[in-house]
Structure formats: structure tokens, C-alpha cells
């Protein structure tokens, strides 16, 4: 019973972290591709997207199997360190946004900025190099974060298949939604999702650093849930502590 519970905790946190992280990155990539497609035509935007996806698939094919051969304690320490840093960065940003000290991530604004930037460039040939490069960059850079998240979490937990499937579901779900609404994905609760991702990544980072250094966690994988709870409370407390007083908010909110 205990074993079943502890395995489930690890799986739940893994699936949650991969799903949320991939969905957030997909929203960001899709916003750029939609802006490029609407402004400069779909052909080059599509080509840029496909080439980026092929490059990302090549990276997964090259590094995925290689990671499996690294000793597990070394892999977990390195991955844990990376996740700890990455997670703290996400969580810090989410705390600053929730407290009002940093502007919320706004897909509407990003969409408009990208469109304005592209419209300022006049030429619109049949094969649009700028559209290709922007779509490629958007998909590749956001996709690279997906690849790192999936490879690190998946290999460390020895559940690469599950991580890949979860990422695929998140990407397809956001992609289909984006294709149906065919506009910016501003209704996705991205800021709340980023808070969730930050908490899950820091929790996983803490857990894997410990595992990599031969720390024995009380409750084994179940400790992950305790870490998630701890970091959620810490985030909530920090937001409450640094939130500017109501009368100061208007003057101090910055982008």
C-alpha cells in the first residue's frame, strides 16, 4: 500500500510538472507562430515551425538515449541542480507577478508586439525569410525548454516514455485549441500555470539533488508531495509579504 502510494506521488508530480511546463511553452510558441502566420502568410510560418520541430526531434534522438547511460546518481544530481535553478527562476517570476511587482505575462500584448514588429517590415515575398526565422526561433527556443524538461524529468524518474507522452498530450491539446480559436491564447491561465510549474520544478529539483547526494527522504517518493506543499506555502507567504500596499500599486508596477 505504501509502495503504491509513493509511486503514485512521484508519477503525479512528474505528470503535473511535464504537462504544465509543456502547455505553457506551447502557448508561448503558438502565439508567435500565429502572429507570424496572420501577418506574413502561413507558408513560411509553417515551414519555420516544421524545421524547428525536426531539429528538436533530432536533439531528443541524439541526447535521449545517451542520458540513459549516465550513472543514475550523477544524472539525478546534475538534473536536480538544473531543475532547482530553473524552478527557482520560474517561482521567483511567478511570485513577482502575483504580488504585482512584475507585469503579468500577457499573450495579447506579445501577439500585438510581434504583429507590429512584422508589419513594420514591408517586403512580403512568396518565401518570407523573416517569417521563417521568427517562427523557427519561437518554436525552437520554447521547444528546447520542453525538451530539457522532458529529458531531465523523464530520465531521472526512469519514466521517459511517460514524460514524452504527457508532453505530447499537452502540446497537442494546446495546439488544437489554438488552431480552433485561431487567435492568441490569452484565455489560458498562464500565470497560474507558471506558478504551478515553478513549485513542481523546485520540488523535483530539491528531491533529485538529495537523491543524487544519497540523501534518504522520509517517505521516499512521498516526500515530493511534502516539498510541493512546502514551496506552495512559501510562495503564498512571499507574495503576501512583498505585495505593495494598495495605494502604492499603481505607481510601482513595472513591466
Amino acid at each position, binding site marked *: 500500500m505504501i509502495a503504491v502510494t509513493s509511486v503514485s506521488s512521484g508519477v503525479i508530480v512528474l505528470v503535473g510538472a511535464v504537462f504544465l511546463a509543456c502547455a505553457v511553452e506551447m502557448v508561448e510558441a503558438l502565439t508567435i507562430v500565429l502572429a507570424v502566420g496572420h501577418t506574413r502568410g502561413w507558408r513560411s510560418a509553417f515551414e519555420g515551425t516544421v524545421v524547428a520541430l525536426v531539429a528538436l526531434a533530432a536533439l531528443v534522438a541524439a541526447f535521449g538515449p545517451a542520458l540513459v547511460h549516465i550513472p543514475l546518481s550523477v544524472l539525478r544530481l546534475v538534473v536536480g*541542480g538544473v531543475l532547482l535553478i530553473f524552478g527557482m527562476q520560474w517561482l521567483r517570476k511567478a511570485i513577482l507577478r502575483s504580488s504585482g511587482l512584475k507585469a503579468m505575462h500577457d499573450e495579447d500584448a506579445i501577439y500585438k508586439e510581434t504583429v507590429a514588429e512584422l508589419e513594420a517590415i514591408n517586403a512580403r515575398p512568396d518565401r518570407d525569410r523573416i517569417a521563417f526565422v521568427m517562427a523557427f526561433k519561437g518554436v525552437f527556443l520554447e521547444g528546447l525548454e520542453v525538451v530539457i524538461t522532458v529529458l531531465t524529468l523523464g530520465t531521472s524518474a526512469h519514466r521517459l516514455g511517460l514524460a514524452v507522452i504527457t508532453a505530447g498530450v499537452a502540446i497537442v491539446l494546446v495546439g488544437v485549441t489554438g488552431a480552433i480559436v485561431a487567435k492568441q491564447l490569452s484565455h489560458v491561465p498562464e500565470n497560474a500555470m507558471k506558478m504551478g510549474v515553478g513549485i513542481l520544478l523546485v520540488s523535483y*529539483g530539491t528531491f533529485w539533488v538529495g537523491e543524487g547526494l544519497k540523501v534518504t527522504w522520509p517517505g521516499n517518493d512521498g516526500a515530493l508531495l511534502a516539498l510541493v506543499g512546502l*514551496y506552495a506555502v512559501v510562495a503564498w507567504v512571499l507574495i503576501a509579504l512583498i505585495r505593495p500596499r494598495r495605494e502604492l500599486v499603481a505607481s510601482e508596477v513595472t513591466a
Partner: protein
Amino acid sequence: MTAQKSPLVLRLLKGFGMFWWDFLVGDTPELFAAALVIIAVVAVSRIVLQENAVAVALLPVLAVIALAISVRRAQRATRK
């Protein structure tokens, strides 16, 4: 005279290095440094001193302290 383009391999390596620098350090070098300190301190307490309970407690506590310091730093920067 035109500036000579560096070889492709060099540019790729530079791009790879820049990506990881932005990814891990970026505008929060304090978090990067904190992670290294956390790993070092926990390694000493677990591997050298053989104190598992101390390591279990130190890991999340140090991460919370690092996060709080970084958030406080950002708050101060916003107020300037």
C-alpha cells in the same frame, strides 16, 4: 575590409554556451550561485558528516532562503 565570419562550429558552440548561460544564470545569478552552495553544503552534511536528517532539512530550507533573498532583491530593484 570586411570582418571575417567565424567558422560554423565556433558559432554553434558559442550559441550553445550562450543558451545555457541564459538558461541557468540569466538575470538571476544569485539563484545559480545559491544552487551551487546548496549542493556543496548538503554534500558535506550527507557524505562527509553522514548526517542524513540534517541534509533532509537543509536542502529545502536553503532553497527557501535563496528564493526569499532573490525575491527581496527584485523587490528592492523595483522600488529604485
